[in-house]
């Protein structure tokens, strides 16, 4: 139990620190790394909530695949020298802190109002095999069938859309006077 509490506080700090780092760090590469730390810490928190499948899915999908692509793109496109800074804008600069404070206040009220009472309790009872792949699969294919299918359809549309967009902006065209090396090697005359 003590070990679980220790893990909870370490990774809760990791999740919060990672989330803050995403917003506060100017260098895009480190910002993405902070997001990796955040998502990994969240996965460990899922694990502590006996949701092993969700934790593994979180790491495989988000930390292991989505963030890899982010890192790939940022490492290629964003250098270390050009820091991300908001463009100065009079009205937004003046009102921004005010709205940010208002949102923070509202969220704090919501969190304190709903979660403070739960701090001292033991949490909900979980049955045997809770969060196992079998139970999650059954829930997805019976109780949540429609949202599940709708989400997978949405992902399919997004994937097809990405392919269409990528094909449309094909950058490199083969020059007209290109010579095929393999053809020359086979003894054919260069065109």
């Amino acid at each position: 139990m003590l070990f679980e509490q220790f893990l909870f506080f370490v990774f809760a700090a990791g999740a919060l620190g990672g989330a803050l780092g995403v917003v506060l760090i100017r260098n895009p590469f480190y910002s993405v790394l902070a997001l990796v730390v955040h998502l990994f810490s969240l996965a460990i928190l899922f694990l502590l909530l006996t949701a092993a499948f969700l934790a593994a899915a979180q790491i495989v999908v988000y930390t292991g695949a989505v963030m890899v692509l982010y890192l790939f793109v940022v490492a290629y496109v964003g250098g270390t020298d050009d820091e991300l800074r908001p463009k100065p804008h009079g009205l937004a600069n003046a009102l921004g802190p005010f709205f940010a404070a208002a949102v923070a206040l509202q969220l704090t009220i919501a969190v304190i109002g709903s979660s403070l009472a739960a701090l001292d309790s033991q949490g909900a009872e979980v049955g045997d095999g809770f969060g196992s792949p079998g139970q999650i699969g059954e829930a997805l294919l019976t109780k949540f069938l429609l949202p599940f299918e709708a989400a997978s359809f949405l992902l399919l549309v997004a994937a097809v859309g990405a392919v269409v967009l990528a094909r449309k902006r094909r950058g490199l065209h083969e020059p007209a006077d290109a010579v095929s090396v393999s053809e020359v090697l086979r003894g054919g005359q260069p065109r």
Partner: protein
Amino acid sequence: MTVEPVLVQIAKAIVIFLLILNIVPQILLLERKLLGRFQARYGPNRVGLRGLGQPLADVLKLLSKERFTPDTAVPWMMAIAPVISIVTAVATLAIIPFGPQGAWGGDLGLYGIDVPIGVLYFFAFGSLSFYALMLGGWASGSKYSFLGAMRSAAQLISYEIAIGLSLLGVVLMAGSLSFVDIVEAQGSGGKGIWFFIPQIVGFLVFMVAGFAETARAPFDLPEADAEIVAGYNTEYGGMRFGSFFMAEYIEVIVISGVAVACFFGGWHGPGPEWLAPIWVLAKMFVFVILFIWVRATLPRLRYDQLMSFGWKVLIPIATLNVLITAIVLVV
């Protein structure tokens, strides 16, 4: 899944780690000896009896070398990248099943842990191991390292899909994600058949994608020494390089272990039950030889060949395999 006392778990973790840690240098020697034979030369034969002292000499050399950091590097990130690589590689060792529960008496299960999400655990740490290559290459501040890191990112992401789909057929047949359950399903209590026969397509896809995931020849483009010096580990020296190197061999052992557990009946074999770990190690040894043999035989792929092979050949085949397996199992 049974939960064992903490002390037993710690003892098992130490035993498995020490076992594999000591196997790695032997595999290294075996690889150099075999590569020598494949290329009609002797291989290392100067240190100790017939070159048996060579692994020790290698490790001592690596340990005593200078730790060099380029001016353009990010030192702290360069330091943690080898740590990530070794941690993720060792963590996957925990789920390789070496024997059933009670094979050596008592309730002792001859595996690190038996998690109900076994296969996903393997993928989770496999995908995390990418960060070692990426961060190491990026933090080195060298163009060759950067190119290697980019290659590894594209390669690992592409082949991760294929390796996942290839194991899905086995998971469908066994009805469980746990490696222990998968091995049990291949014994006389389950289907009684090693899964490489019904899942031969899945097995072939798994092995090819496994070579790519470990970045071994012919898929060693992240460190293609003829094109980009040594890729992501160009700027590394001493034991930091040694960590990358060791992680690669541990990953080879892990892929061999997963192949044995998922396709070749794990601990099943003739003889009394307490022989189980010997059978697993013997089968893994065959796969390690295969890894070395392929390295000596096949030339490195071209980069566009690597990509089109992964996306246009492996993934469609693996998807079809899963579909057909599901249809056969249900009908």
